[in-house]
């Protein structure tokens, strides 16, 4: 049995190698389809996980911001940028006095033109409670600010890497010189591209005294969030949003995008199926005489079907393997494409080419290709040998 299976595969490989042009065309079509399916599935899984990771990295479950659209504010905070809505510092004392609040942190977020054309550098003023809400944050080197008003900065990992800055170096911000006090470990979130300042220093440099962009709250019991939100709703000039609502809203938008991506991937898969179907038809038409001879020599119908089908299996497997390599190689390009075309994209990798994603893509494409090749294989196995040989000339 193993010997026959080995022979069947050996035949298929030999035939694929012998008919090079046809095989290469079919393999390329399958490869493109596999790569697109892998990127689409990888995007689906990666975006959600990246969003979870970014929201989790914020460290709070409830966000208090100035009046405006709460979801817009939340996504801006996730993405990073200047939000022209502020709350007064004294509101903070009222908010944190609520009984449901376990931990809280205040921040002021601003962005200024960065070193690269069109790029902006994000600055966030933070208070001493920042680290308590972010247990995952660790220093790669250096340490926390020496004082609440110290002219110091803590750099996200990517900022330090990109600008080649180290602890003790100086950076300039709106005419103010700041000393690098620490560099954070890589987090895979927006924080990697952020420069953190003491809150008071940020309020001073950006001329926003006693102003905050937001207050992050961690509650003792998330089940009590509704009561807190209702109560804070009565406070003028602020709005409250749960981060889980933001996630749902972002994922709702993503679902529409995902449908578009899936439709695009489906078109590519359909093209690949047509390619494999066409290649199988072409191969079997070309080999019609050969298959007729095999039938004449007594080849059982099942064996003939396997021989014909196995060639499609080899083509689709080869195509899928190439497609996986293409997907891995083009992951960065796919990420850039998504980032360029979506208004909100969370930090960190958003197209995941995990083994599960790759294997699912391969299984899907190969299964569909085999289904497409089954009919031509069955027809070639069922034709009388004299008819096949006569037809093939």
């Amino acid at each position, binding site marked *: 049995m193993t010997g026959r299976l080995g022979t069947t595969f050996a035949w298929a490989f030999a035939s694929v190698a012998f008919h090079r042009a046809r095989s290469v065309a079919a393999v390329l079509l399958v490869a493109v389809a596999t790569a697109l399916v892998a990127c689409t599935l990888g995007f689906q899984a990666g975006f959600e996980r990246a969003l979870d990771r970014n929201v989790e990295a914020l460290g709070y479950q409830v966000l208090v911001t100035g009046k405006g659209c709460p979801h817009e504010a939340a996504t801006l905070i996730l993405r990073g940028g200047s939000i022209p809505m502020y709350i007064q510092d004294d509101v903070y004392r009222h908010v944190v006095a609520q009984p449901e609040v376990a931990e809280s942190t205040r921040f002021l977020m601003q962005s200024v033109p960065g070193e690269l054309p069109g790029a902006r550098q994000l600055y966030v003023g933070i208070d001493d409670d920042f680290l308590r809400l972010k247990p995952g944050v660790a220093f790669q080197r250096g340490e926390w600010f020496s004082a609440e008003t110290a002219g110091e900065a803590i750099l996200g990992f990517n900022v330090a890497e990109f600008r080649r800055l180290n602890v003790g170096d100086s950076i300039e911000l709106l005419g103010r010189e700041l000393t690098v006090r620490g560099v954070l470990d890589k987090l895979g979130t927006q924080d990697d591209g952020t420069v953190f300042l003491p809150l008071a220093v940020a309020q001073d440099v950006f001329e926003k005294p006693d102003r905050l962009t937001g207050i992050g709250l961690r509650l003792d019991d998330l089940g009590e969030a509704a009561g807190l939100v209702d109560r804070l709703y009565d406070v003028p000039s602020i709005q409250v949003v749960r981060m889980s609502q933001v996630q749902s809203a972002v994922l709702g938008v993503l679902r529409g995008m995902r449908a578009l991506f899936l439709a695009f991937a489906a078109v590519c898969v359909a093209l690949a199926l047509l390619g494999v179907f066409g290649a199988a038809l072409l191969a079997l038409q070309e080999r019609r005489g050969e298959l007729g001879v095999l039938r004449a020599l007594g080849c059982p119908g099942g064996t003939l079907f396997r021989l014909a089908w196995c060639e499609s299996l080899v083509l689709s497997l080869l195509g899928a393997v190439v497609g996986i390599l293409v997907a891995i190689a083009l992951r960065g390009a796919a990420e850039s494409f998504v980032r360029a075309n979506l208004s909100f994209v969370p930090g960190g990798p958003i197209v995941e080419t995990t083994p599960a994603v790759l294997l699912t893509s391969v299984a899907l494409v190969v299964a569909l290709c085999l289904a497409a090749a089954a009919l031509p294989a069955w027809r070639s196995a069922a034709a009388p040998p*004299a008819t096949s040989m006569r037809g093939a000339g």
Partner: protein
Amino acid sequence: MSLVAATGLRKDYRQGGDVVAALRDVALAVEEGEFLCVTGPSGSGKSTLLSLLAGLDRPTRGSVTFRGEALETASSGRLAELRRTGMGFVFQDFRLVRHLTARANVRLPLLFAGDGEDRADELLERVGLAARAGHRPHELSRGEMQRVAVARALVHDPAVVFADEPTASLDRANREAVWRLLSELHTERGLTLVVAAHDAEQVPGAARTVRLADGRMVEPLRRGTDG
């Protein structure tokens, strides 16, 4: 009981809207160990007759038996089984599998049978191609390809070999070599041979010749090699 027998054999083909009779009322019996030559001009039905006798095609009417078993009613699976256990084939245009070596081509019937002694190398040596066993068909001459086909027809030790104009596309020297080979194998192994040829003069060693014209057997069965 004859090894292969046909009675009232008719085969029609459709050509456009017309029905063309390729064979009409043919009766024939092939005995074990016989060397039979079927002759006739192009289009006389020689190839069709061999196809029906070998179960490669089904008659429109009439009956064909192999070792007493009716082929016209046998399933395609049973026909394939009969071919792989009891019949060998040599075709006019060799019909070798292009991506397989000469040795792999010769082994094909053994592969389908799933058992049997691997005599591929022995037969390749017998047909004078031991040194060419690892070559693919496009690396062989036409005469060599046909000798590979002869070896393939014999490798599973069949009861009968059908050869449809096996020398039609060969030059004179190769033609003579192939006929000599088939004739020797018939004598050496007591092989039953049914060959189709344009002209009986080309087939040395055939003990009996039947002639077809326009799908009918036009001459009674004759013994000898007098054409």
